[in-house]
């Protein structure tokens, strides 16, 4: 399981940003996420591989025989440009 990007950011969804499925969008397995609790429709997450990643919006989560598939729409440009879209870190009470 890949948990961080090469530049030290937490990686929420391992996915091929070059890839697609029937939806035309990059996809990944929810089960391979180190932070599945962050992945819900409409959420902004980090997605990609450790070396090439982006800030992406979760479009939907569909259940197939192979598992739960997360579709994302990445923002154009470097992930660091869009970090402000991510939710603030949870603070333990």
């Amino acid at each position: 399981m890949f948990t961080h990007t090469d530049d030290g950011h937490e990686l929420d969804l391992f996915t091929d940003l070059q890839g697609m499925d029937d939806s035309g969008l990059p996809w990944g397995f929810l089960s391979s996420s180190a932070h599945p609790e962050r992945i819900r429709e409409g959420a902004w997450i980090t997605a990609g591989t450790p070396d090439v990643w982006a800030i992406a919006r979760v479009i939907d989560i569909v259940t197939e025989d192979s598992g739960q598939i997360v579709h994302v729409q990445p923002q154009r440009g470097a992930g660091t440009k869009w970090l402000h879209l991510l939710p603030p870190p949870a603070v333990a009470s």
Partner: protein
Amino acid sequence: MSPNTPKLRNDPLPQSGYLVLRGLGIREATVRNLAAEFLARFPGLHAYGLSGYYAVTTQDIDALCGDKMQRWEHVAIFRIEDLRAAGLGLYPTFRTPHITITHPDLDQLIYLLDHTDHKVVPNPYHGTND
């Protein structure tokens, strides 16, 4: 095709042309995981798979570099006929110009991509949206 196989387009791949893949700087472990996730998602194809895009002309390659491949600092360019001759499967999957490159053996998939003649070139559009 059953749901556990990737959707194939009706338009066949061109006999000649290019396949454009992410280039330098991606770790083998990452490629292996991507290929394995493809098989886990689409077991009906009985092969490991990676995503790429085909191009007919050098202008097509340039367009891919500025759009779908813009995130990658380098791109690797193969000739489609060389990949076929090497024994790799090439499927026109999902939306044009997406291709899935396959082999039933993961080690062979990695080896054949490494050893099939190709060139790695800097992506002139990398970073232009940063």
